[in-house]
């Protein structure tokens, strides 16, 4: 198990979006699976708003179980989407611990402020499309999927 914490300034860990004709692909890249999960969560926030605009004020605990790393990624992203929707919050800082078939995490964020966050679009769900957790040729972990917006 390793614990990863997001840092927008980390050189190696990063997130990116990749194109899908109707929706958005999100991808987190990092030296560990945990960091890749953290970065994927930041990529998810970035679909909605600039994560740098979200103040990590309040913590929300998230836990999920799934039989594989990819399934855990699907559950992790959908759990964040659920918390965003029901709490009307956005998150910008994440702590992730991965066990064999379980994820325990904290997401830090604040209530949506339409004026300041200017949220572009809401995310309906993380999908199985392009859902992958793998190591790229330089050994970094990559966590990705398409999210439905």
């Amino acid at each position: 198990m390793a614990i990863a914490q997001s840092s927008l300034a980390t050189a190696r860990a990063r997130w990116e979006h990749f194109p899908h004709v109707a929706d958005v692909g999100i991808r987190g890249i990092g030296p560990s699976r945990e960091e890749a999960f953290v970065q994927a969560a930041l990529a998810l926030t970035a679909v909605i708003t600039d994560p740098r605009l979200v103040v990590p004020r309040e913590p929300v605990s998230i836990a999920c179980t799934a039989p594989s790393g990819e399934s855990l990624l699907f559950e992790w992203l959908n759990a964040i989407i659920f918390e965003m929707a029901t709490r009307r919050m956005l998150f910008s800082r994440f702590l992730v611990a991965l066990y064999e078939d379980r994820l325990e995490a904290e997401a830090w964020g604040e209530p949506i402020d339409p004026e300041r966050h200017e949220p572009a679009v809401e995310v309906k769900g993380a999908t199985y499309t392009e859902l992958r957790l793998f190591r790229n040729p330089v050994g970094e972990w990559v966590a990705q999927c398409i999210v439905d917006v």
Partner: protein
Amino acid sequence: MDLAPLQKLSETAWELPPQGTMRVPAIFYGSRSLLEQMDDKVAEQAANVASLPGIVRAAYALPDAHWGYGFPIGGVAAFDPEQGGVISAGGVGFDISCGVRTLLTGLPRGSIAGREEELAAALAREIPAGVGARGKIHLDDSQMDAMLRGGAQWAVESGFGEPEDLDRIEERGCMNGADPAAVSRGAKRRGREEMGTLGSGNHYAELQEVTELYQEEIARAYGLASGDLVISLHCGSRGLGHQIGTDFLREMAAAAEAFGLLLPERELASAPLSSELGQRYLRAMRAGINCALANRQILTDLIRKVFGRFFPDRHLALLYDVSHNTCKEEIHSVEGRPLRLFVHRKGATRALGPGHPDLPVDFAPWGQPILIGGSMGTCSYILAGAQESEARAFSSAVHGAGRRMSRNQAARTWEGKELLGDLERRGILIRARSHRGVAEEAPGAYKDVSAVVEAAEAAGLAHRVARVEPLICVKG
């Protein structure tokens, strides 16, 4: 999309004959140009759908089809429960019963002259829209269950609208067979404070002017006159429907192997209609449809209240309400025999032809109104169901233009503020929460809706009745 593997059936219909695991052909409707613009994934996904058990006649992709999840968006497929047919959460999608309804004002364009800004501000103020917006009503557990069972009927009984509205909504405003117990607590939590909210993305409330009539007689029957104002709403079942989609996608994907289903994509997640899971999804999905019907009914009430302040003597009658992402149990004629089928329409509209018993009496001679949404700066269309659509695609038609450009590319191509200025100079007032959201939804990010509608007409899926142009658009 590469057309080489397809056989041309007509100028607007192409067939991919069964191959590999396909049980039936895949049929693609659209002009050569529209089909060439489609992603190759559309053909691949239609072929995958054609491989599912119990599929009847063909897997169809309509002229607005694009790459979706499992099923293409703009896809239609019917399954026979007597032949091992399946129901697919992926074949309905996350935005259950997302759809369009159009209200008639009977007012000429000139009636709002000089008051456009005021009206736009009032609509934007009263309609909860955008990410995180809360509705003005809060449902407790028993009200939530009543809403999920009753749909727009519940909304009307709760004071949002009039009984005559129900005759102008698919299923008379209430999808039978919905079961709140099949909907997870999480889904209900997501829906609890979202009733009467528009959502975001391509969802909108738009004041439009009827600018062209193609079929005067049908237009008259629908209550449309050239130069009149109408209001169209595009929204769906909101977070409740999205969560039903997530819940059952997960469960169906996990159960596929046990059902002996070979899924080339997990998003094809399906269950036999005869299974407990398939039946439970049907009941939950129908509750999701009712949520969308109730949501559009509540929003209608908000719009009527705004208009009532500007035009106190004017009643806004409902033209019709159509849903896009559904699976419905319907009787269709297959090889001369009536069969009970479960028709998935993902990003497609039901399009009943003239004389169909489910049509309101007023529309029976003309066919069902089909409301085709544009995107802010582009026109929208009102079509009528065609008789031949039953044979073409189980009485289905297109639902909109369909995207041609990713959101990332659109955000790189346009700048939201400039786009708003350009549209305003064209006389279109947009009220939106986010400049990036506006750029992502730029009209140019979508295919040419007129080309899509012309192809749908040429393919015998529907007839054009009227074209409408946007004047005021409230975006999520």
